[in-house]
C-alpha cells in the first residue's frame, strides 16, 4: 500500500504535524493512507448487503403511502400467488416479539414500527414484508399487495401540527436554559436585531441504504448490518427476540456511511431479522432509496427565532434563541437547535427555548451535527445581521463577543484555540480585504462575489469503550475493539493509536473491529469514536507494555533487569532502558524467555467525571466562504471554502482533512441544496430520491482548504483527542448564507437558499 503523499497535498503543516506526539517508532500523527484502502478500491470490502449466505431469501418491505390512518386491506393472496414469493408477513401473522415496540428500548432506542398493528403513523412506515426467492419476485409481491387504507387528515405543518413545550431535546438535553436577565439585556441594548429562520427536513441518505442479512441457528443469530453501535444494538436485538445478548453476533466491518442514521435501532432492520427467524432461512432485506425517507430517521425541520441585543461597543447584551422542532406523533426527538447558542458567544443574558411540533412523520433523529448544524446555521446569520447593524466586520464582531469561558456557566474550556482558527482561517482566505458593504464585488466574468464567515463548534464527548491487545510470540500484535468505520477511518487511526501505545510499527499491528463479539468499542457517534475507542486501545497497549516490562525487568538475564517500570521506553518492538537506550530487548525475546506464547492486555476508557464537571469541552473552528452568483439568473456556486479547526490532538491529518472537507460539503448542501419536500395534503415526500433531493455533486465542490490548528488538551482525555467528524458542517452553512448576502444584499433566512429567493427581490 502506498503511503506517499502527492506533492500537492504536502502542505507545510502536514509535514510538521505535532512533532511532540510523534514518538520514536510511532505512526501516530502521521498522514498514513487508509489501511482498508486496498479493500475499498478493489471492491473487496464487504458491506452488509454484499453477503449472500446459502439458501438466502430476499425480503422487501411494503411501506405506507399515507401519513395517518390504518391499513384496511392487503391483497396477500395476489402477492403470494406471484411466482417466487414465499411468504407475506403482516400484523396478522408476524411472530411475537419479546419487547413491546411501542416502548422505547433503552438507552437510545426509539419506538419502532414492526407490524405491531394496522395503524399508520407516517408515510413509508412498514406495513408488510414480502419474502421471496428472488429480489424481483419480492419487489413485485409488494406491489401486488395494493394496500387500501382508512385515511385521516395528515398533520404536515405549523398550521395543523400539535405544538408543545419540549421538556428535553436531542438525546436528553434540557429544552430550556436561561442565564442572566434577558429582558434587561434587551432593554439595555443599543439595538436589537431579530429574525425568523427555518431549516427544512433533511435525510441522512448515506450512499449505502440500510440493509440487513440475518441468519439464525436455533436461538443464535448472525446479523450483517451497517451499525454505529454494535454492542448496544446486539443487546437490543436480543431483547426484541428474547435471547441472551451473547447469542447475537453483529458484523459490521464497513458502513457505507452512517451520519447518525445507523446508530439507532429502526423497524425495517428488525423486520429483516424477524423474517429470517419466522421463515427459518437466511434473509436479506435492503431498503430502497425511497424507503429511507421515513423509518430510519432524519434531521427534523425547525422554525427558529433569534433576538440579539448589542451595545454601542458591539458586545452582545442579550441572546434569545427559540426553536420549534418537528417531531413524530409518537416519539420525542426534537432537534436541539437553539442549544447552539449556549456554546459560542459571550452574553450577560442568554435564553434558549424549544418547542416540539407533532406531525405525521417518521421520528427524526440525530443527523451529522444534530442541533449544532441547524442552530448555528441560524445563529451565524443572526450574528452577521447584528454585525451589520453595528457597522462592524463580521469577524471583528465575533471577536468582540469571544467567549473566554463557557457562556452562562462561566466554566473554563478544557482548551479553546478558536482565536487561532479565526486568525489562520482569515489569513489563508484573505478576509482582510473584504468590503463591509454588500453587493460591491464582481469577478472578471461579471459574477457577483460575496464573502462570508461562520464559527464552527461541536462538543467532544468520550464514551465508555473497551479494547484488547495481544502481543504475539513473533513480536506482532493483535488489537481488537468492536468499533465501527463509517468512513472516518477507524481501521487506520485506531490502529495507529494502538501501534503507538505498543511501541510497534503500524505494519506489525493487526487490527480487528466491526464485530459485536469483540470488546465493546462503544458508539461511533458524536464525533467521539476515536477519542473513546482510541483511548481504550491505547490503554490496552499500555497494559501490554506494563506486563512486558514486568517480565523483562524481573528477568536477571535481561539487559533490562532491575530497570523498573519508569525506566523503560517501548519503541520499534523493543523495550529500552531509559537511562541507556542502547540496552534493549525485543518483545519476542522477552516473551520467549518467559515461555509465553502471547501476552494479553486490556484497556477501558471513559471521561474522567471530575474533568467533565470542571470543564466545558468543545472543538472549534472558523469557516470562510466565497460564493459567485450570476447577477441575473441568480444561480449560486460556492467558489472557495477555507476552514480552520482546532480539535485537540490529530492522529492522522490525512483522514482528518477528509472529515473536515466532508463536513464542509455538507455545509454547502445544507445552505444551498437539501430539502425534503412533502406534499402538504398527503405528507408524501415528493422528492424521496437522489435526483430531486439534491446533495452536492463533484461540480458543486470547489477546491477547499482545511487548516489543522494545533491544540493540546490533556483535560479531555489522556490522549487529548477531541472530535472532527461533525464540526465541519457547523459554521460552513452560515458562512455560505452570509456570503450570499454579501454578494447580493439579500438576507435569506430560510434554508436552502434557492434561486427564487434571490430573484424575487432584485
Amino acid at each position, binding site marked *: 500500500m502506498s503511503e506517499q503523499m502527492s506533492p500537492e497535498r504536502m502542505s507545510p503543516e502536514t509535514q510538521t504535524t505535532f512533532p511532540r506526539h510523534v514518538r520514536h517508532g510511532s505512526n501516530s500523527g502521521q498522514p498514513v493512507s*487508509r489501511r482498508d484502502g486496498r479493500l475499498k478500491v478493489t471492491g473487496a470490502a464487504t458491506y452488509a448487503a454484499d453477503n449472500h449466505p446459502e439458501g438466502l431469501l430476499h425480503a422487501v418491505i411494503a411501506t405506507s403511502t399515507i401519513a395517518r390512518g390504518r391499513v384496511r386491506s392487503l391483497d396477500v393472496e395476489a402477492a403470494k400467488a406471484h411466482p417466487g414469493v414465499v411468504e407475506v408477513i403482516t400484523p396478522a401473522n408476524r411472530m411475537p416479539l419479546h419487547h413491546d415496540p411501542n416502548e422505547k428500548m433503552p438507552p437510545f432506542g426509539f419506538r419502532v414500527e414492526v407490524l405491531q398493528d394496522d395503524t399508520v403513523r407516517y408515510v413509508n412506515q412498514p406495513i408488510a414484508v414480502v419474502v421471496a426467492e428472488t*429480489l424481483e419476485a419480492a419487489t413485485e409481491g409488494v406491489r401486488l399487495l395494493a394496500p387500501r387504507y382508512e385515511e385521516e387528515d395528515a398533520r404536515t405543518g405549523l398550521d395543523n401540527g400539535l405544538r408543545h413545550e419540549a421538556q428535553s431535546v436531542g438525546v436528553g438535553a434540557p429544552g430550556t436554559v436561561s442565564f442572566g436577565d434577558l429582558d434587561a439585556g434587551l432593554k439595555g441594548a443599543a439595538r436589537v436585531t431579530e429574525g425568523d429562520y427555518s431549516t427544512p427536513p433533511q435525510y441522512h441518505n448515506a450512499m*449505502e441504504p440500510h440493509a440487513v442479512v440475518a441468519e439464525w441457528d436455533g436461538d443464535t443469530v448472525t446479523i450483517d448490518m451497517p451499525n454505529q453501535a454494535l454492542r448496544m444494538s446486539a443487546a437490543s436485538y436480543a431483547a426484541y427476540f428474547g435471547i441472551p445478548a451473547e447469542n447475537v453476533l453483529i458484523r459490521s466491518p464497513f458502513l457505507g*456511511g452512517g451520519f447518525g442514521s445507523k446508530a439507532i435501532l429502526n423497524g425495517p432492520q428488525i423486520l429483516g431479522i424477524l423474517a429470517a427467524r419466522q421463515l427459518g432461512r437466511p434473509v436479506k432485506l435492503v431498503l430502497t432509496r425511497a424507503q429511507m425517507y421515513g423509518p430510519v430517521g432524519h434531521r427534523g425541520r425547525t422554525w427558529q427565532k433569534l433576538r440579539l441585543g448589542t451595545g454601542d461597543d458591539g458586545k452582545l447584551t442579550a441572546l434569545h434563541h427559540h426553536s420549534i422542532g418537528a417531531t413524530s406523533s409518537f416519539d420525542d426527538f426534537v432537534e436541539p437547535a437553539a442549544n447552539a447558542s449556549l456554546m459560542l458567544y459571550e452574553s450577560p443574558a442568554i435564553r434558549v427555548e424549544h418547542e416540539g411540533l407533532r406531525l405525521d412523520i417518521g421520528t427524526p433523529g440525530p443527523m451529522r451535527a444534530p442541533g449544532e448544524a441547524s442552530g448555528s446555521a441560524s445563529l451565524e446569520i443572526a450574528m452577521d445581521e447584528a454585525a451589520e447593524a453595528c457597522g462592524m466586520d463580521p469577524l471583528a464582531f465575533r471577536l468582540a463577543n469571544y467567549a473566554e469561558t463557557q457562556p452562562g456557566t462561566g466554566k473554563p474550556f478544557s482548551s479553546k484555540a478558536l482565536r487561532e482558527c479565526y486568525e489562520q482561517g482569515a489569513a489563508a482566505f484573505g478576509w482582510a480585504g473584504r468590503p463591509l458593504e454588500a453587493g460591491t464585488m464582481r469577478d472578471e466574468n461579471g459574477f457577483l462575489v460575496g464573502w462570508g464567515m461562520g464559527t464552527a463548534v461541536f462538543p467532544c464527548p468520550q464514551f465508555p469503550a473497551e479494547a484488547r491487545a495481544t502481543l504475539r510470540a513473533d513480536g506482532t500484535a493483535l488489537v481488537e475493539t468492536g468499533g465501527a468505520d463509517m468512513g472516518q477511518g477507524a481501521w487506520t487511526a485506531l490502529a495507529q493509536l494502538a501501534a503507538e501505545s505498543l511501541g510497534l510499527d503500524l505494519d506489525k499491528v493487526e487490527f480487528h473491529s466491526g464485530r459485536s463479539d469483540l470488546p465493546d468499542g462503544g458508539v461511533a457517534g458524536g464525533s467521539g469514536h476515536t477519542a473513546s475507542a482510541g483511548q481504550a486501545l491505547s490503554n490496552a497497549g499500555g497494559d501490554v507494555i506494563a506486563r512486558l516490562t514486568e517480565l523483562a525487568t524481573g528477568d536477571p538475564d535481561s539487559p533490562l533487569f532491575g530497570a523498573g517500570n519508569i525506566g523503560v521506553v517501548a519503541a520499534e518492538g523493543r523495550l529500552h532502558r531509559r537511562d541507556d537506550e542502547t540496552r534493549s530487548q525485543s518483545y519476542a525475546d522477552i516473551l520467549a524467555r518467559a515461555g509465553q506464547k502471547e501476552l494479553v492486555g486490556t484497556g477501558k476508557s471513559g471521561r474522567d467525571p471530575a474533568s467533565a464537571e470542571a470543564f466545558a469541552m468543545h472543538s472549534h473552528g472558523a469557516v470562510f466562504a466565497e460564493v459567485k452568483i450570476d447577477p441575473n439568473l441568480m444561480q449560486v456556486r460556492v467558489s472557495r471554502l477555507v476552514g480552520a479547526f482546532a480539535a485537540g490532538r490529530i492522529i492522522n491529518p490525512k483522514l482528518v482533512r477528509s472529515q473536515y472537507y466532508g463536513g464542509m460539503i455538507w455545509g454547502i448542501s445544507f445552505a444551498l441544496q437539501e430539502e425534503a419536500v412533502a406534499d402538504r395534503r398527503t405528507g408524501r415526500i415528493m422528492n424521496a430520491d437522489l435526483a430531486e433531493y439534491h446533495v*452536492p455533486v463533484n*461540480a458543486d465542490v470547489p477546491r477547499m482548504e482545511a487548516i489543522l490548528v494545533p491544540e493540546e488538551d490533556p483535560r479531555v482525555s489522556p490522549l487529548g483527542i477531541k472530535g472532527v467528524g461533525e464540526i465541519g458542517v457547523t459554521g460552513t452553512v452560515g458562512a455560505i448564507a452570509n456570503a450570499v448576502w454579501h454578494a447580493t444584499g439579500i438576507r435569506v433566512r430560510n434554508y436552502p437558499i434557492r434561486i427564487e429567493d434571490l430573484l424575487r427581490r432584485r
Partner: protein
Amino acid sequence: MSLSISLAINGRQHDVALNDPRVTLLDLLRERLDLPGTKKGCDRGQCGACTVLVDGRRINSCLALAASMDGAEITTIEGLAEGDELHPVQAAFIEHDAFQCGYCTPGQIMSAVGLIKEGMAGDDPERVRELMSGNICRCGAYQGITEAVLEAGRKAAENAQPQTGNPDTGKDAA
C-alpha cells in the same frame, strides 16, 4: 420466460440462464454472479454507485436489463487490478484519500476509468469535476476524487507516449 445470455465479465465468459427478464445487470452481478463489488445506491440512475464498463463505456448498471446486455463485455471493480497490482486509478484513490466510507468508490473508480478513456477532460480540474458528477459521494470525498482522477489521467497520458516512461515496461518511470 427464460432467456439464455452470454456475457464476458472481467475477461471471463459467463453463460447465464436467466429465468426472469426483470433482472438488471446490477442485480445479476450482485445477487446471481457473486460479484457484489458493484454497489446499489439508488437503483434509479441517480447516484452512479453501480457504474460499470460495458464494451469499454461507463454506464449505470441499475438501469440496464441483463437480457439486453447479451454478448457484451463487462468490466467491474473486481476486474480492474491485475493480480496484486492495482490499476493506476485505484492506486491514486488510495493516495489522495478519495473515499471515506468506500461505498461510492467502486462506481467512482469505474467512472474515472471510463472518463480517462473518453479523453474529454484533459488536465482540467473543472472538466473532471463535471464529468465525475454522475457519481454522488455523500461522504464528500470529492476533492480527493478530483485529484486522483487528474493524477491517473496524467499517468495514462504519459503512458500513451511511452518516451516519457520506462521504455522496457511501458510503465511510468516514477
